[in-house]
């Protein structure tokens, strides 16, 4: 059935109706042949072939309806997916913009803090001396736990 997806809708519809109509017509003709002695011989084969064609036509008509329903669902699904992809892209852009802006604020604040440190550096350095052991503890804490 998957191969049917490559055939255009109109072609499929035409083929299904043609098979069904040919079957019904042949079945009808088989009755007419009964009244035409030279062709009476073909009556049974025509009836059998007509019946088979009609049955195959009905089967294909059912398949065709299923195929059309399936195509409609696929189109519906594809539309939903396309909409979701567009929404996803928009959301990505918004989230990225907000993130970049927030990071910028953090960096700007750090610049301000560094200026404040420079302003009071002489004062704090004069009043406080950091011993090497304090630095070791600080660095050890900053290093965290290595894997």
């Amino acid at each position, binding site marked *: 059935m998957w191969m049917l997806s490559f055939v255009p809708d109109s072609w499929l519809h035409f083929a299904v109706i043609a098979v069904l109509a040919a079957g019904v017509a042949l079945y009808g003709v088989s009755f007419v042949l009964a009244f035409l002695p030279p062709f009476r011989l073909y009556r049974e084969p025509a009836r059998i072939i007509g019946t088979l064609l009609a049955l195959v036509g009905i089967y294909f008509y059912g398949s065709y309806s299923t195929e059309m329903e399936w195509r409609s669902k696929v189109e519906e699904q594809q539309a939903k997916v396309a909409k979701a992809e567009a929404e996803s892209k928009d*959301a990505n852009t918004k989230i990225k913009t907000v993130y970049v802006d927030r990071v910028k604020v953090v960096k700007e604040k750090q610049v301000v803090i560094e200026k404040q440190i420079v302003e009071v550096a002489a004062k704090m350095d004069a009043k406080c001396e*950091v011993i090497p052991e304090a630095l070791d503890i600080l660095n050890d804490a900053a290093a965290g736990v290595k894997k």
Partner: protein
Amino acid sequence: MKKLLLLTVILLAGCATSVPVERKFPDAPQELMEKCPELKQTEQTSKLSEVLKVVTENYSQYQECKLEVYTWIEWYSTQKQIFDSVK
């Protein structure tokens, strides 16, 4: 003849398969894919101002990493919601 017909019907029914619509979970922004750097170490010094500078830089680094984690959570929740909305 009957067997042939039956076989044809079975074979045709066997071909009835559905092709799913292909979907892909979106890629995260490149900015969120960067790893948080290690915290800075303080050079040997006795000046409190230099130590304070490194400490505040590390605080700032933490703030950036916190933002990255929060943004990841927000990104995942939003994208999952959008992804799940298609049924």
